[in-house]
């Protein structure tokens, strides 16, 4: 073997070994602490979930989850670097360790949980496909849409869900299929169809783009499951647990009535659940690799889940989405967090 050939082989070997070197890296928690910053992948812009405001501050439900994690891990919710990721690059960015967490309205599916090397930490927003109709049509439920024409975007699961829904309810319907959602929406506005369908969170922002938002209603029926949640890499169990419990802390705080405003008074509370949540009893934070004030800092910085919801998508926002499925289980919703004990 000549020297040149040997050199080439060595270089090739080094190149092949490099990903191996990269995967034997330090744990996410350590690198976040070392960096002093959480790198959080968010949507480029989605009303209510993550969007920059006119001051350049990232706001929204997902953006506040980034803040909550940073508050728990680094003690300061502002130590977040937001990376705007597109639909196509989001998973690669997480896998290639450019991100610590992906909080980007991503639907939790089996395929993503298994084949993509991701672990979803839970559901921070229960979304699903719904319908918007004109108020004048006087329709109260999607089941009354028999014979209606529905505008829908082509080539998405939205179209398939629509077909499934009408078939399983044995209803006649017509669809007008459009390449782009904008076109479908225009057709709905031009009265070419009776209803427009997409995910409910999207319908509320669509409604704000109508000339008379009050003339349109979003029907209560939800015909598909789109559980959105933050995800982390599969290879780091400790980090997975931390992010998961940040989510649970937000829910538990709402259930226990701990808010951003009263969290300091709550430190003196005698209620056992509150004392355990805020680190007055037990060593629960230490178990996570954090300190016992972790949940206190989260609430202090972003408030509980209900406050985040109200602020960005609920009544305090222009979207004004009702809690519905996103209420706590105690109020007829689906959010249920395991206890801190």
């Amino acid at each position: 073997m000549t020297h040149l050939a040997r050199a080439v082989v060595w270089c090739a070997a080094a190149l092949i070994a490099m990903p191996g070197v990269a995967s034997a890296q330090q744990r996410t928690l350590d690198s976040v602490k070392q960096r002093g910053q959480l790198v959080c992948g968010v949507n480029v812009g989605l009303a209510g979930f993550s969007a920059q405001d006119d001051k350049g501050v990232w706001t929204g439900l997902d953006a506040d989850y980034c803040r909550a994690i940073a508050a728990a891990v680094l003690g300061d919710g502002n130590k977040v670097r937001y990376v705007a990721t597109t639909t196509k690059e989001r998973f690669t960015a997480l896998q290639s360790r450019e991100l610590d967490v992906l909080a980007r309205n991503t639907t939790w599916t089996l395929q993503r949980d298994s084949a993509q090397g991701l672990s979803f930490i839970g559901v921070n927003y229960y979304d699903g496909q719904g319908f918007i109709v004109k108020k004048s049509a006087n329709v109260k439920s999607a089941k009354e849409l028999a014979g209606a024409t529905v505008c829908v975007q082509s080539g998405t699961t939205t179209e398939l869900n629509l077909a499934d829904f009408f078939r399983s309810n044995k209803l006649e319907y017509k669809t007008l299929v459009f390449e782009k959602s904008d076109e479908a929406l225009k057709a709905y506005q031009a009265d070419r169809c009776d209803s427009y369908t997409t995910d409910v969170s999207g319908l509320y922002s669509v409604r704000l783009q109508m000339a008379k938002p009050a003339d349109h209603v979003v029907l209560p029926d939800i015909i598909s499951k789109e559980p959105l949640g933050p995800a982390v890499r599969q290879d780091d169990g400790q980090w997975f647990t931390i992010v998961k419990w940040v989510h649970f802390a937000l829910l538990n705080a709402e259930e226990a009535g701990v808010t951003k405003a009263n969290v300091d008074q709550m430190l003196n509370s005698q209620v056992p659940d509150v004392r355990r949540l805020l680190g007055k009893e037990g060593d629960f934070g230490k178990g996570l690799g954090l300190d016992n004030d972790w949940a206190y800092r989260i609430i202090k910085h972003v408030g509980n889940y209900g406050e985040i919801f109200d602020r960005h998508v609920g009544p305090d926002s222009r979207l004004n989405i009702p809690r519905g499925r996103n209420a706590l289980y105690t109020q007829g919703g689906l959010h249920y967090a395991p206890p801190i004990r």
Partner: protein
Amino acid sequence: MAGSAITPARPPGAPGGPIAWLRANLFSSWSNALLTLLALWLIYQAVTAAVGWAFLHATWEGPDGDACTREGAGACWPFVADWFGQFMYGRYPEAQRGRVNLVYVLALAGLLPLMIPQVPGKLWSSIYLIAVFPVLATILLSGGVLGLEHVPTDFWGGLLVTLVISSSGIAAAFPLGILLALGRRSRMPIVRWLSVGFIEFVRGVPLITVLFMASVMLPLFIPERWSIDKLLRALIMVALFSAAYLAEVIRGGLQAIPRGQFEAADALGLTYAQKMGLIILPQALKLVIPGIVNSFISLFKDTSLVLIIGIFDLLGMVQSGLSAPKWLSPATPMTGYVFAGLVFWIFCFGISRYSHFLERRLAAGGQRTVAKADEH
């Protein structure tokens, strides 16, 4: 036989005045009159619609999108006013935006002397622009030294990013394009093959694919600590991409130079560098100014493709404003896109006018030589 010569009559004077002009140019026949009326009607429709949208029915004040939500609402200008800082600078910290303005001033200080023929000091301005300004601009924009606060490139956005990508793209692509064009015509086989290979590869791939590769694939191949800044990746890709296109434009110019020019230069005993630098390139580049400017303008507009890799250029920032819930309204999207289009148009039109000026100036020299040759 006439006794005296007839005094020649004055030729009938061409009828003057606006009415005559109208008859000659707009209503010379029935069909032309009809077309004129049709065109006038179309212009009237378009202008009234545009004025109505932009001024008469526009919203001028308001706290959020509700102000622009009504039937027949025109432009939603308070949205643009509210987001103006974001459109121009992105998330660049407000307190530090003076640094960006200073960079603009420094750039103009170097560019104006170069662009205006009457101003002296061309050599020094070129040296300043090539060697000093890029360093100054990097230090000022990025910071982290000399007591300047470090502003990571994630915070850059809006028009700032558009200008950074396009100007550094142009600055890097131009010399690279010349080298590639010369390389493609070189007699040295390896240089020629490399140039041909690069040009043909790049021209065969859409810019969007190249940007995607840079942002999605590259991080998988290289270890975390070697990761290159996302904006820098985009910068390099845009520059390489336009270099390949520019090389072909310049090669067109090189081919238009008669063989005699090459032979004359060789006969004078000039070196390759002298021949190209003093004789061939000045003529070739002058010939292809429209093509070069075309490439620059399309590069300027292509910068908005970086949106798909999560970099917020002007258009990206506008779209980001459109997705924020505060200003959601039926009138907002149109307003945002019109604003972005207007800014792009101002820049592209400026570049285009300047190139016309340059062409006329350089062509004037050419015309004089032709006229002299005719006298012989």
